[in-house]
């Protein structure tokens, strides 16, 4: 029913979002991620938003809430690949995504999880 792909890579959940998801798709994201958290008990969730062109307050709130729920279920959430224009717009309207971790791309997000470190990716 949605364009979101949720796949398990080793002990992680890889979630890829389409470029312009409608509200139903965004709502489905939360549902799918939490279901997968329960079924597969991954260490964390990597949310690949590199295709996303618009991040409005509804979308941002859903993502922030989902990350909070994932944390309650024992996982961490890393948002990977936000586009510059999206980051500028989000900052301008005051969206900060709370305490969610971010990574430049999926590769660095995976590295962060593997190393168990914080916000900054490591040098290869």
């Amino acid at each position, binding site marked *: 029913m949605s364009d979101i792909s949720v796949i398990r890579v080793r002990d992680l959940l890889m979630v890829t979002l389409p470029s312009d998801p409608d509200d139903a798709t965004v709502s489905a994201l939360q549902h799918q991620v939490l279901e997968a958290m329960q079924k597969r008990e991954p260490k964390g969730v990597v949310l690949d938003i590199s295709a996303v062109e618009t991040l409005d307050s509804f979308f941002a709130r859903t993502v922030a809430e989902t990350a909070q729920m994932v944390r309650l279920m024992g996982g961490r959430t890393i948002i990977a690949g*936000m586009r510059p224009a999206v980051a500028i717009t989000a*900052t301008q309207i005051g969206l900060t995504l709370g305490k969610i971790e971010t990574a430049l*791309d999926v590769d660095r997000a995976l590295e962060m999880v593997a190393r168990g470190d914080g*916000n900054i990716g490591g*040098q290869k």
Partner: protein
Amino acid sequence: MKKKSRPANSVPPDSTPPSSPAQPLQARRAEMVPLLVKSIKDYAILLLDKEGKVLTWNAGAERIKGWKANEIIGQHFSRFYPPEDIARGKAEEELRTARDEGRFEDEGWRVRKDGSRFWANVIVTALRDENGQLLGYGKITRDLTERREAEEKIRKQSQEILEMATVPIVQAWEGIVLVPLVGMLDSQRTQQLMERLLHRVTETNSPIALLDITGVPTVDTQTAQHLIETISAVRLLGAEVILTGVRPVIAQTLVHLGIDLSNVLTRSSLAAGLRTALETLNLQVAAKQ
């Protein structure tokens, strides 16, 4: 002259006060012109002979150039030029142009008695008698130093805006981009810079951006707000910002203004920031054995 005499002529006789009849004043016009020239303070007005030696001096010339009449009359007017202009014969060329074309106009540096320079507008006019015989030259000089300084200031300001638009975003190391900020940060410049920085971080896949404010003279609440916004935006991308070049005066200002940068990684110098960046990337620079 004719033009100026007309209103006086058109005045009806009965409106003229009896104590000062119009006619004698008209007759004294010739005396008044030298008086006018002599007392004008805003322009240096002088006569030069055919060779360029100073014949007359007025109040404006003394005020602008510094010499008194007795010190300069009889001297060649190249005294007013900087050495480099004297060397290339600029003074003589001006007279030549005035002689051949009737008039010469120039804007440039001239020298005062004390050796200091001022920015001058100079007009040299050839003076000829009714037979066309060259008598000498009239020279009018205005001091435009203030105007030039104002123009210079505007030029410098627009230059600064341009500089900010072209602030280099440098790849300092693999994974580290460096932004050396120069001048004041206003909202438009910050917007532009933020956009360029974010694109650069993404393009180069750099997890660390060093924002160096060594060249930023002061930080006010608004500037700090711009910096904080930039830092938040970079973080959303998944990179970290280290604010470097926080000099003592900037640190004091930030605390006094109550600006909270406790969530931001800050360092006093660019070198310290670079060291932190390398450590974060698990790199180290060691002396050669």
